[in-house]
């Protein structure tokens, strides 16, 4: 019997948010790429919340876009409501979030994949990876077909060994009742990959017609919509938006939950996987925050052409009958008809400390992985990793320099560094508090930070790159100009200041100084700045932020300079930690396990002390001097 055998440059396993970005990046760089999915109808499916972005996740989408990824463009084409969160806070935490039309989102992404050259879509369950002396050679499907490739990218999401739990009822399926992948885990284990088991959950979907919206508060989108993608013309996204709705749980809800806790698979001990603390089920919220007499519930549409509404804030794994009782105790949901039950899902993922910051496995050359398989959670986190894994798989095949973003450059850098360097016992979610240099990592300047990397990789056009260079220059020049504009204490100026409730001037000052006053801004002072050139809005925004927060930004830049010195001290691949006598045992074990690429990364590994880092530095310098003396 003969089996199918095909050859590709890259195999991508899984067509969720990570897989799509990975496959698109490789194919767009000219590599012959095949993407596997258990169901072609589930490409870029959103099995949980119907939105893209949100605090810090919005940053990720912007960064993906600046690097030449697809997520931002795709949501701009398919959103039905959009909001800039934290608008009253500083620019570093402004975050875009859009409600997606799930079906449209999935279809648009599928269209993009289908129209990309060099990209093949294949519905099949990958059951094995093939290796030869620790180098990947391809994958095998359940039907026995072999696909040879120079690189394989695992983006298996929540499908590996998946089971869904709804009270006592257990379904051995992936999300949304889709077919799970039951064989790949064994093959990975055979190849020495350490596997974890995580869990996550989703709330019920309820028929719109059964909801009484008059008992809820309507939540509107922003009046002026900002697109995610830097390439989307803002005029094109000013659409009619649909609303979300806010209601609350109450004591009765909590009572129902408490009475039925023993029927929750988590509290009954049936679930083995570790769940995320940041998106607790409603059971968890009621138990852990028993002092709260109510919790918010957001009712969000799943799309234009569906009646299903997502019940945000009430994910659960309680049995079906309890779910009815519980949801119906919430004002507006008294007559709720459930379309899909809430459920918890358990799945196999792996310990990401087995990866390099390039997302390639340390032990298996050419094998990359991204997304929930790496122990993260969230569409945006997955897409970000998928893009980086895709770029790096391509770079390694093309013999070009791989892309590693550091913590001072991007949220993506923070995300990947946290995953591969820190101990991670729950699905990892991006948070702005994880980014120590967040004042520099704003969503508004993602293009300025990252376009050059996308351009170097080959995913950003010449034209787009040239615009970034031009934009940088315009910003720079305007900041200098504003600093030279002297404002006299004349009557006109005083009147204008007064109109903003600002203290009048005693003597002349610079425009820069005035802009720094909390009640004033670059935009509002245009009238006393007659020489101001006409600049694009995105340039003005940067000028404004830079002048206003100059002191804070400079302090953070200084911290970054310190940080970078350690990041730039690279540790050679073949560094032998056993040669460094003075390392403490714990540090030596950890360093050998993690094999950090730089002194900076080494310093973030738990169990490695500053003294150990000093030892490493001294030892490395010693080696350098020795090599130099020996003329190497």
């Amino acid at each position, binding site marked *: 019997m003969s089996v199918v055998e095909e050859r590709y440059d890259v195999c991508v396993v899984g067509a969720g948010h990570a897989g799509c970005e990975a496959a698109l990046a490789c194919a767009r760089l000219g590599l012959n790429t095949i993407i596997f999915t258990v169901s072609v109808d589930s490409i870029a499916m959103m099995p949980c919340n119907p939105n893209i972005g949100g*605090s810090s996740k919005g940053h990720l989408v912007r960064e993906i876009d600046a690097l030449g990824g697809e997520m931002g463009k795709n949501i701009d084409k398919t959103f039905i409501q959009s909001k800039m969160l934290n608008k009253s*806070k500083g620019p570093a935490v402004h975050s875009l979030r859009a409600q997606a039309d799930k079906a449209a989102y999935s279809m648009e992404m599928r269209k993009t994949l289908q129209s990309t050259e060099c990209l093949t879509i294949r519905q099949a369950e990958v059951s094995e990876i093939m290796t030869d002396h620790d180098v990947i050679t391809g994958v095998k499907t359940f039907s026995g077909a072999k696909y040879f490739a120079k690189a394989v990218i695992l983006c298996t999401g929540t499908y590996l060994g998946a089971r869904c739990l709804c009270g006592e009822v257990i379904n051995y399926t992936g999300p949304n009742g889709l077919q799970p992948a039951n064989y790949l885990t064994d093959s990975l284990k055979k190849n020495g990959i350490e596997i974890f088991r995580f869990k996550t959950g989703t709330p019920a979907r309820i028929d719109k017609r059964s909801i009484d919206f008059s008992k809820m508060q309507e939540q509107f989108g922003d009046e002026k919509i900002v697109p995610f993608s830097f390439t989307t013309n803002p005029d094109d996204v000013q659409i009619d938006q649909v609303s979300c709705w806010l209601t609350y749980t109450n004591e009765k809800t909590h009572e129902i939950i408490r009475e039925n806790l023993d029927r929750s698979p988590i509290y009954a001990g049936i679930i083995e996987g570790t769940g995320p603390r940041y998106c607790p089920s409603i059971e968890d919220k009621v138990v852990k925050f028993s002092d709260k007499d109510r919790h918010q519930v957001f009712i969000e549409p799943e799309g234009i052409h569906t009646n299903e509404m997502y019940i945000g804030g009430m994910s659960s794994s309680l049995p079906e009958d309890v779910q009815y009782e519980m949801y119906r105790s919430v004002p507006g949901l008294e007559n709720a008809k459930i379309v899909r039950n809430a459920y918890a899902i358990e799945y196999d993922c792996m310990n990401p400390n087995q990866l390099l910051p390039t997302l390639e496995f340390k032990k298996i050359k050419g094998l990359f992985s991204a997304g929930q398989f790496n122990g993260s959670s969230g569409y945006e986190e997955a897409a970000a990793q998928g893009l980086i894994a895709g770029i790096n798989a391509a770079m390694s095949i093309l013999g070009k320099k791989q892309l590693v973003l550091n913590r001072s450059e991007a949220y993506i850098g923070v995300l990947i560094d946290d995953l591969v360097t820190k101990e991670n016992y729950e699905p990892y979610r991006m948070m702005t*508090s994880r980014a120590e240099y967040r004042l520099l990592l704003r969503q508004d300047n993602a293009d300025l930070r990252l376009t050059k990397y996308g351009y170097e990789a080959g995913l950003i056009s010449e034209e787009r790159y040239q615009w970034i260079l031009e934009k940088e220059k315009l910003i720079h020049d305007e900041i200098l100009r504003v600093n030279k504009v002297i404002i006299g204490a004349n009557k006109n100026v005083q009147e204008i200041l007064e109109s903003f409730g600002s203290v009048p001037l005693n003597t002349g000052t610079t425009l820069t100084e005035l802009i720094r006053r909390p009640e004033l801004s670059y935009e509002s002072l245009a009238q006393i700045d007659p020489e101001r050139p006409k600049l694009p809005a995105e340039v003005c925004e940067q000028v404004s932020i830079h002048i206003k927060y100059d002191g804070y930004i400079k302090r953070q830049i200084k911290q970054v300079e310190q940080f970078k010195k350690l990041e730039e001290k690279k540790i050679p691949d073949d560094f032998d930690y056993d040669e460094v006598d003075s390392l403490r045992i714990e540090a030596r074990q950890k360093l050998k396990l993690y094999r950090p690429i730089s*002194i900076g990364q080494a310093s973030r590994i738990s169990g490695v002390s500053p003294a150990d880092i*000093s030892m490493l530095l001294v030892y490395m310098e010693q080696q350098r*001097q*020795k090599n130099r003396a020996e003329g190497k």
Partner: protein
Amino acid sequence: MKTDTIAVIATAMSPSGIGIIRISGEDAFRIIDKIYRSKNGKKVLSNEKSHTIHYGYICDGERVIDEVMVLLMKAPNSYTREDTIEIDCHGGILVMKRILETVLKNGARPAEPGEFTKRAFLNGRIDLSQAESVIDIIQSKNDFALKSSVNQLQGSLNVKIKEIRQKIIHEIAFIESALDDPEHISIDGYGERLKKNIDDILVTVDKMIASSENGGILKEGIHTVIVGKPNAGKSSLLNLLVGQERAIVTDIAGTTRDILEEQINLNGITLNIIDTAGIRSTEDVVEKIGVDKAREHVDKADFIIYVVDSSTSLDENDMEIIEMLKGRRAVVLLNKSDLSPLTTEEQMRQFLSQKIISVSTKEHTGIDELEETIKDMFFHGELDFNDEVFITNIRHKNALINTKQSLSMVLGSIFDGMPEDFYSIDLRNAYEELSSIIGESMEEDLVNEIFSKFCMGK
């Protein structure tokens, strides 16, 4: 590792003729310009040539601290290959301390153990053979630093710092959870409340800074412990050394019984003396704690005074003490020389090689010889003045001052009407400074605090 500007007292922390404070790093000249005044007040040292010496004064603002000579070395022609300044001052401990503090206040940070040598090495200044010693320094000094910051920092200060940290991280976690989940958690109008809390914290921090100014956080000096069986005459000896019946007796936290501490000055040498509970095997729980404590003190001591009651025979308790003394810096006092001896110097010799002196605390004899012995040991370098404790103190104080500064900046941000996310930048810095005192880190703490205290959505 870091390349910011560091400073250290380069000479021994003992009263000597001259003291040297050394500064290294890119800000060295900027700092010296701020604190140096020439005689005519016009000279700016950063404009002067490398390898020149300048007479003048070190000032803290308007106040003159000391008359000094300043030696300039510009990069790369210095030990560390960085811009380096040496300030030669009068050798009093207080003066050196003040100058160092002024330097720190103006932008340097206290050097880590062995850091000057490490920089010299990493900048290619010293050769391979010297590198071995760098590793030794880092290792041994770090062991101490670890011990001193975690072990010696006992009691109320540690508790207080943890309390403040807890308060600060709670505020950060609240801000952060609201930023991460703005639709579930609102922080509107939070500035006012935060201001009140920070004002409260600042009062405590100020008090801690003040208390670190008089006397230090950790007791400086030669860590000395008096041991012996009950009634051997330990307390009498301590009283004699102090020179009077003790008016004030300090209790050390954690010991409700039997451990007393005094600081005395012998010819300019500071001894930090702890009088322990008498050591004898015991079943009594309360007393057992006192004895365990005594052992702990002996383990950590720089110098041990073993008081033997020579009018009784050596017993198992003495043997236990003798075991602890092997290889340690110690003197043995055969007390009660006024009574007929049952234990003699010859007997003691069989067990211990340390100096043995006959004394009578009752008749006040032999005490001069003890003082003379301690002085000799010190000047022959057998006894170390523990300058690491001093450095640890400076570091703690510096961290407290930085904490204060960061908290003040939070108040500044509130006053300026900055958005809430700016508060957490400086709150984090304050938290990290405090953490550096007790040797803990932020990362996990914050995430845990956020998830455990605030109910996040989805």
